[in-house]
């Protein structure tokens, strides 16, 4: 049983480090030193950003919450050995986030580059963003330019974020204002009685395609992983960390506070469903047979779990929809009720075919929006992050911009952490 103790942050400010009664105070100098405590990082600029401020954070690489496990590693495989997460007590600051900004080496270009998206904390940009309403510690990481290995550079950023997350999370460990949320393992749930609430699974399809487009489970990337089972409590307790900087990415906070899992757990507490272990699968297999094999095995796991229904999410653009559709098709054929969440690529005018692949079995889909429709945002008063002047979004990233929706970080969140959707007109 995981006890997730959430502390409601109401105010964030720079000052002497501490957390008390919803007020989080951050020692920016000490935190800066914590980030640069790695020879790969040349410098870091930290800033507190409040919702409503005319601030734009550029080149967003990842979003973390602040958390600390009382006993054991908070992100097993990174800040300690890869022991199973999902038990004991973990403190999480609710209503606060850490946003990393940085430019990673691009190498030869092509697919394996970090895509650049931004967060606006005010106005039109904020309206479309899942992260604009949360007080933020923005971290502009400047890597040693001598480091050209993408994975090495990315690892430096990830470990710096983990240091920040746990150091800030530790401020709340002794605070008395926490609310406990119990997340049981599947073997700790009561056996499902006949006629009881329906047995529901979550099919969590993620991307791990190589450097800058990968995802880590207990510290190891899961490229070409065969579908497997994992407890919701493990995922909500730091088992999975993002290293994915594609256009369609699930940032770390969407693994550790996955919106679908949170909702499923809430419905379970209300007695409306029984949550089964999560079916975890990678969604970028490179051949049709590999995709078919992966989808078929995910369906076998759903059947072994005797799932009656499942929610399917994905990560990554393009071919990830193929894996999702194949899995939905197999599960539907097995008599399992399926609901998929998907972003759309309907072109700038919304007139193009929104999905590159589909199965007619996918009869129930939830949209997270057409990522190519344009959004116009005003000039920022403050910019966090480096503007090289060479962005495809414009020569001056602090100025007024008209950009595709995907330029606004995670606006089409594939795990459903967005209020954007596309509708037929």
């Amino acid at each position: 049983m995981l006890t997730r103790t959430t502390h409601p942050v109401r105010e964030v400010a720079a000052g002497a480090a501490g957390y008390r009664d919803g007020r989080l105070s951050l020692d920016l100098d000490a935190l800066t030193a914590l980030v640069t405590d790695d020879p790969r990082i040349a410098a870091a600029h930290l800033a507190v950003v409040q919702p409503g401020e005319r601030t734009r954070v550029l080149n967003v690489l990842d979003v973390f919450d602040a958390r600390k496990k009382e006993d054991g590693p908070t992100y097993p495989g990174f800040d300690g050995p890869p022991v199973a997460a999902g038990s004991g007590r973990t403190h999480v600051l609710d209503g606060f986030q850490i946003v990393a900004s940085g430019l990673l080496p691009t190498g030869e270009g092509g697919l394996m580059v970090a895509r650049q998206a931004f967060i606006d904390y005010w106005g039109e940009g904020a309206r479309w963003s899942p992260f604009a309403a949360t007080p933020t510690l923005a971290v502009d990481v400047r890597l040693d330019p001598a480091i050209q290995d993408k994975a090495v550079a990315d690892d430096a950023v990830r470990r710096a974020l983990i240091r920040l997350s746990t150091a800030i999370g530790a401020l709340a460990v002794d605070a008395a204002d926490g609310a406990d949320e119990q997340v049981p393992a599947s073997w700790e749930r009561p056996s499902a009685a006949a006629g009881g609430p329906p047995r529901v699974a979550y099919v969590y399809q993620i991307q791990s395609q190589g450097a800058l487009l990968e995802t880590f489970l207990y510290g190891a990337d899961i490229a070409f992983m065969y579908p497997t089972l994992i407890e919701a409590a493990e995922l909500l307790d730091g088992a999975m960390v993002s290293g994915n900087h594609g256009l369609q990415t699930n940032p770390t906070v969407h693994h550790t506070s996955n919106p679908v899992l949170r909702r499923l757990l809430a419905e379970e507490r209300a007695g409306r469903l029984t949550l089964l272990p999560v079916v975890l699968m990678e969604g970028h297999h490179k051949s049709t047979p590999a995709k078919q094999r992966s989808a078929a095995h995910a369906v076998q796991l759903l059947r072994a779990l005797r799932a009656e229904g499942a929610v399917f999410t994905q990560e990554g653009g393009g071919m990830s929809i193929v894996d999702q559709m194949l899995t939905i098709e197999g599960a539907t054929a097995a008599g399992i009720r399926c609901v998929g969440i998907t972003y759309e690529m309907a072109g700038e005018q919304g007139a193009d075919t929104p999905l590159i692949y589909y199965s007619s079995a996918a009869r129930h889909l939830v949209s997270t929006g057409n990522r190519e429709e344009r959004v116009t945002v005003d000039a920022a008063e403050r910019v966090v992050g480096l503007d090289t002047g060479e962005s495809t979004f414009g020569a001056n990233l602090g100025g007024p911009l008209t950009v595709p929706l995907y330029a606004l970080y995670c606006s089409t969140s594939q795990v459903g952490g967005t209020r954007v959707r596309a509708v037929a007109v």
Partner: protein
Amino acid sequence: MKIVHYLNQFFAGIGGEEKADVGLEARAEAIGPARLLAQKLGGASVVTVICGDNYAAEHLDAVTDELARLVAAEQPDAVVLGPAFNAGRYGLVCAALAAELPARTGVPAITGLYEENAALELYRSRALIARTGKSAANMAAAMETIARLVPRLAAGECIEDPAAAGLYGSGGRRNQVVERPAADRAVDMLLGLLAGEEVGTELAVPEFEPIAPPAPVPNLGRAKVALVTEGGLVPHDNPDGLTTGWSERWASYPVEELVGHPERFQAIHGGYDTEHVNRSPFRLVPADVVREMVAEGRIGELHDRYYVTAGMATPVRNARAMGAQIADELKRQGVDAVILTAT
């Protein structure tokens, strides 16, 4: 209420296929379906315009001009075309006129089509098209829908929810911000499904037209073969400025240059790991192997240029247009067959 109502020779009661060549004629009375609509509107002053299917299809521009002049002169509250149900020529003419007349005259126009009518996909983004059954047996229901819409259109109302009003809508997608996040909506949708409710979908899966594979090349040993790719292989300085994806343009480059200096080429495509292609461009554009096969007599000839775009996230519409342009060019060059490599 004043209506200009367009009908073909068949619905106007003039005759069948033998009268399909009659030209445009306007009558200051409600005829056939126009009379039914006038009744449902509770009375209307109607000008019925009649035109043969062949004449209209073959002289669409002239018919459009003439009808636009008539509408401008008559100043009706709305123009109604058909409905044409699943009719081919009639459907195309009605839909084209429904798209064109409001732009020319400022008068709203509406037609009705069956969902499988080919004119629907061509014109739905530009015309108001009511959903109808397959044939004239569904005339009463179709006119009921149109009669409910005509006063709203005449009043200048913008139809916010086309599906609820019985219209197809443009078929396009528009973003909005809603109260509940997608995760919550998905879980609600699943719980509804499990409870046996009708939960619908936020995105109906699109229908792609099937592309039939072409017939085999009869004699490859005598065929002129061209290499085409969507994998984004361009000379190092990308002289035509092709984009990494979302492409609208294509280019062609000399095969001789590629074979002589593969190191001067690079893949700019943004949707796959380009490292291997950059090491050996022939992995993407197999000019080396095809030249060997030409030498062996297994392929007649290799066309001297290869054709390229970057397919990543490229709208189907753009891909279709580029495909047609490249095919035209290849035909002009006397190319018989193509090896198309995709990533």
